[in-house]
C-alpha cells in the first residue's frame, strides 16, 4: 500500500465517517435530552478533560475525513499534475494547521 493507495484511503474514509456519525448521533441524543445550550454551560462542559479529549478526537476525525475527501476530489479533477500536487500540498498544510489550532484551543481551555 503506497501513500496514494486507493484501498487504504477507502477504508480510512469509511472508518472516519463512522466515527463522525457516532458523534452526530451522540450530539443529537444529548441535545434531545437537554444538553448544555448556553455559552457558559458549553464552556464548563468543554473544560472537563474527558470532554476536551472527546472533542479533540472529533476534530482529528473531521480533519482526516476532510483530507481523504479533498484528496479524492483533487486527484480526480485537478490537472496538470504539477498543479494537482501543489493543491494537495496546500490542502494538507491547511488541514494540519487546523488540526493543530483545534488541539491548541481545546487543550488551553481545559488547562
Amino acid at each position: 500500500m503506497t501513500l496514494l493507495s486507493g484501498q487504504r484511503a477507502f477504508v480510512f474514509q469509511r472508518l472516519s465517517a463512522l466515527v463522525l456519525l457516532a458523534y452526530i448521533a451522540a450530539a443529537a441524543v444529548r441535545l434531545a435530552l437537554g444538553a448544555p445550550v448556553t455559552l457558559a454551560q458549553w464552556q464548563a462542559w468543554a473544560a472537563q478533560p474527558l470532554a476536551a479529549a472527546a472533542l479533540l478526537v472529533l476534530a482529528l476525525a473531521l480533519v482526516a475525513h476532510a483530507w481523504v475527501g479533498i484528496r479524492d476530489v483533487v486527484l480526480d479533477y485537478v490537472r496538470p499534475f504539477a498543479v494537482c500536487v501543489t493543491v494537495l500540498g496546500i490542502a494538507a498544510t491547511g488541514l494540519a494547521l487546523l488540526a493543530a489550532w483545534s488541539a491548541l484551543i481545546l487543550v488551553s481551555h481545559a488547562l
Partner: protein
Amino acid sequence: MRYPVGAVASIGHRISGVLLVLMLPFAVLALDRSLRSDAAFFAISGWLRLPAALLAWACAHHLFAGIRHLLTDVGIGASLPAARASAYAALIAAAAVGLAFLAL
C-alpha cells in the same frame, strides 16, 4: 443531458463535502470564540442567512448521502429501485433542511 438521480445525489455529496471543508477554518474559529465567551460572534445577522442555509444543506446532504453510501457498501439498498428511492430521499430531505434554515 439527463443525469440519473443516483449521480445527482453522488455529485451533491462531493460538492457538499468540498463546501464543508472550505468552511472548516470558520468552524475552528467558532470553536475558539465560543470558548472565549464571544457571544457577539454568534449573533447571525440577516445577510448571513443564505450562507447559513447553504451550510445547513451541505451538512444534511453530506450526512444523508454519506449514510446512503455506507449502507450501499455493505449491500443494503444496492438494488437499482432501492438505490434510486434512497437517492431521491437524500436529495429531498437535504433540500428540506436547507429550506427550513432559510425560513428560520
